[in-house]
């Protein structure tokens, strides 16, 4: 479904990603592991069209994503829920969700249907519908962010550290939700520090180090791998 071939990303003369090639198949939940600064967010941003790859190509289904504008990438079904949520703080929760439907703005009926699905996933948001998103707690904001991404009707959803700074209880909810979203048919690419929890719900995983992909494997191999355990899961 998603295919990266030899992708490089540079910031000035600093090379953040080197020769990344990977695939994500339809229906999969793939986890991307890596230390801080390994390049996970850079990879997501490259796929989303927020930074321009300096080499290589990114293929989504039959479309070539590299060179596309960020707005066009979203329209073609690849949606990122970015690190730090990036909500519209003074807009209400409902408005935030509806902005997520921007690329499908003509299809009102479809949006309403989708909205109901999202609210089913996060019932709390229905109660907070009219509150400004900025006033919500961190966990609730994360739900709005995921909900908003869902409103864009992704076929591939990229989640960048959704558990960052969340309380343990909420972290658990978030992972459950991600799993649920995946099981309802959305392909998911998930970047996480919280490797253990992420691997538990994943089908496959990649490991990044210093802008390189250094390892790939399915859930069991990864959970069993000594190196992975040591570096990303902790003692």
């Amino acid at each position, binding site marked *: 479904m998603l295919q990266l071939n030899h992708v490089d990303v540079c910031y000035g003369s600093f090379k953040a990603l080197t020769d990344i090639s990977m695939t994500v198949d339809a229906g999969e939940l793939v986890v991307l592991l890596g230390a801080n600064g390994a390049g996970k967010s850079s990879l997501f941003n490259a796929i989303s*069209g927020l930074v321009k790859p300096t080499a290589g190509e990114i293929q989504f289904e039959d479309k070539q994503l590299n060179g596309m504008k960020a707005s066009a990438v979203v329209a073609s079904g690849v949606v990122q829920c970015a690190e730090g949520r990036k909500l519209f703080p003074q807009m209400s929760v409902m408005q935030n969700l509806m902005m997520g439907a921007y690329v499908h703005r003509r299809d009102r009926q479809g949006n309403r249907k989708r909205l109901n699905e999202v609210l089913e996933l996060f019932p709390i948001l229905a109660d907070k519908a009219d509150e400004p998103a900025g006033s919500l707690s961190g966990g609730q904001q994360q739900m709005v962010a995921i909900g908003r991404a869902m409103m864009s009707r992704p076929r591939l959803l990229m989640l960048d550290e959704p558990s960052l700074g969340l309380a343990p209880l909420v972290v658990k909810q978030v992972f459950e939700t991600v799993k649920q979203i995946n099981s309802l048919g959305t392909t998911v690419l998930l970047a996480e520090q919280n490797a253990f929890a992420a691997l538990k719900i994943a089908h496959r995983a990649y490991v990044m180090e210093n802008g390189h992909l250094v390892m790939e494997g399915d859930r069991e191999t990864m959970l069993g791998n000594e190196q992975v355990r040591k570096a990303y899961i902790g003692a």
Partner: protein
Amino acid sequence: MFKVASLLMTPAAKYLMLAFAILFPLVAANEYQVYVMATAFVWAIAVYGLNIITGFCGQLNLAHGGFFAIGAYTLGLLTADYGWSFWPAFLGALVMTAVLGFLVGIVSLRLKEHYFAIFTLCVGFIIYLLIDKWEELTHGAIGVRDIAAPYGFGLVDFTDTTPFYYLVLAFLVFAIWFMGRLSKSLLGRTFIAIRNGDELAQSLGINLMRNKVLAFVLSTTYAGLAGALYAGMVRFIGPEEANINHTFDMITYLLVGGIGTIMGPLLGTVGIVWITQSLQFLEEYRMIIFGPLLVLLVIFFPRGITGSFLTWMHRKSQALAPTKKRQENKVKTAQNREAESNA
């Protein structure tokens, strides 16, 4: 921005420039050129003041031209209407701009960013209006005539252009010297810390208000110094000295020269003053050239003459030491972000 210490150009370059400045009246084609240079130096002193509050401390002060005018008017009125002689009135102008700077500072510096900028824009405009309307004190639109020229204690005649040039040069050298020293000192670092993040600075125990007011008073005093010299040079002043355009001019000089640098204000001021003079032949059309030129400078030399020069030096030294690759200036790379979404 780089370590401030490294913003100083090499000492050799500075001495060369000083030597040139001293010799300039000898090599200048005529007195007019000396006069223009002296004017440029007067403005440069004021721009150094702006550099303290805006370049170092990060507060865009749009009342700067107003304080320049206050300096000029204090000197003008004291000598023309109250019979003071030049040097006491000169001191009076410094004290006046410092005191008014303090008063304006404690009110305006409570505001941040654009609010501070627009607030001071209004303060500058009020200064203009007061000068224009308060006729009993300022003669309003009629202006102040018969301003005293600096006297040289029988040694030199400062009404001649060349001696006046050296007088201004002396003040300028002092202004730059002090600025250089300030920037390297703990006090200068404190100002820069405030520019870089005031909440953090405060949590490190820095009293924001006290430091910002100090920087503001310093800057208005510089403006007052320049204004007083200006009045002693032109010897006729009117409300237009407080025109907001002067402030914009000074910001332009600062930006083109290199904001927050030591030599930038001088290079920017002298450069633009000469560019404007040499575009004079275009008369009313010169803004058609100057406007776009300004835009281009800002876009392609965002760090000004001095800043671009330093970046270039930095690049060169980096090229010599390839191992330090990561240190390559990443500020610019932010432009890479959003590149496509926004292209």
